[in-house]
Each structure stands twice: as C-alpha cells, then as structure tokens.
C-alpha cells in the first residue's frame, strides 16, 4: 500500500504521559525499549499512557501487577493522531466500523476498528477518553466531572521520547 502524504502529522508533544507496569517490565523497557502490546486493549495495538495523570498510571500498575510496580513518564509526539474526542475523527471511526460490517465482520470491537483505520491511514497515536465505572462531580452540583481518563495509545514506538521511571514500589 502506498504511504499517504505526511502533510497532517502533528508536531504536538504531550509532555507528561504515564505508563504503569511491573517494576521488572519498566526496567526492561528502559534498558531495551518498548514492545507493542496486542493484548486485551480498547484502543487497539500499542503502548498505553495516561495523559497528565501519574496517579491513574499508579492505580493501573497496582491493579494489574501484584508484585513490585513502577510508573514510567515519557513525552509523546502525537504525529498522525486519531483523535477520538474530535467529531470529524469520530465520523471516520464510525465510517470504518460500517465498512467492516458491510464486508461481513460481525460486530467489530472498537480495538479492531481502530487497528483497521490505523493500518490504512498510517496512524501513529490514538487519543481518547475512557469512562471509569464510578462517575461523580468534582464539586457537588457543578458540571466538572471526575471518573474520566485521558488515554494515549502509541502505535509508532519512535514517537515515545525520553522515557524515565518516576515512581517505584517495592513489595517486601
């Protein structure tokens, strides 16, 4: 497939992206680099970060790694970013899902739709909001809500810049 012209790659850099994992895995990442995850992921294949929230990354690490854990902070260049908060990008996502259904893919997951769109359109990163199970107002009666997580899924590893371990928890 011919590469599309790279006229719309964003130079925007997320200065504070946080990735929670086991301490051993964090040390391995810093020493040898990242591995693309193809696990049970809602935004498709990639390395997952919480934007601007080290505590969410810590919670993730605690919930998913019973042993020693760590949080890696990195800068992430958006590049060709699928922005699922943007209506025009949401429309492209819906169009891709419709095309897959039309081609006989029964009820494609979000991750599959993103993988398909990302492969066809050479997407580097995916930015989306995830709703946690509990939602409540930051202040009772006012519209600002807590319980949302701003996620950044990086598919092009070279867009992850200067990673460093910023928090570790040894279990004794």
């Amino acid at each position, binding site marked *: 497939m011919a590469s599309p012209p790279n006229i*719309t790659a964003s130079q925007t850099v997320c200065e504070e992206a946080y990735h929670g994992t086991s301490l051993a895995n964090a040390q391995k990442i810093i020493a040898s680099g990242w591995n693309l995850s193809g696990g049970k992921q809602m935004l498709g294949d990639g390395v997952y970060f919480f934007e601007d929230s080290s505590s969410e990354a810590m919670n993730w690490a605690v919930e998913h790694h019973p042993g020693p854990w760590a949080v890696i902070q990195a800068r992430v260049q958006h590049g060709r970013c699928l922005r699922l908060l943007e209506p025009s990008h949401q429309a492209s996502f819906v169009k891709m899902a419709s095309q897959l259904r039309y081609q006989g893919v029964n009820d494609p997951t979000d991750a599959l739709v993103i993988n*398909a769109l990302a492969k066809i*359109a050479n997407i580097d990163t995916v930015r989306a909001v995830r709703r946690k199970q509990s939602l409540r107002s930051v202040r009772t009666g006012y519209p600002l809500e807590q319980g949302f997580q701003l996620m950044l899924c990086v598919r092009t590893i070279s867009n992850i810049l200067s990673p460093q371990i910023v928090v570790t928890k040894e279990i004794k």
Partner: protein
Amino acid sequence: MTTDPINLLATEMDALVSAFFQNTTKPEFAQFLAEIGYDHYQNVKDDVLGQQLGAQKSLRQTVTLSFDSLDGAFRSLVEEPEKVIAADHQDLALAA
C-alpha cells in the same frame, strides 16, 4: 475547504478508507483482517463487552438508587406532609 490539520487528517482518512475498500479483493481483505488481529479481538470481545456492561450496570444502579431516594422523599412530602414538616422543624430545633 478546511485547512485545519485535524479536519485535513479526517478527510484524508476517509479518502484512504474509501480507496482501500474499492481496491481490495476478498482474499486481500481476509489477509488484512488477519494482520489487524481479527481472531484475537473477536476472542476477547466477550470480555470487553462484559466489562462495558458491568460499567453500565453500575451506573444504572447508581441512577436508580438516586431516583428511588428522590421518589421516597417526594412520596413522604405528598402523603405525610405534616410528618416531613415536623421533621424539618425538629432538625431546625436541633440546629438552634
């Protein structure tokens, strides 16, 4: 014509998707599905949907509980206004 890079990318994505589906044969599409992890994501779909349903159920329970308590408060006000008012007075008296 937009010059906004975000909308430009959306336009470009739409064009690439249309071109892909116009020019791809069935065997190529089957290969494409394998490359984007079709089997894997179909296998984990039940788990993902289960999590989403769990979140929706939890939210619905919260809303139902809120409505139930509101409903109870209104019913008390309609059916036993004196009792509610008396309770309010008692609260005020306690506060004083």
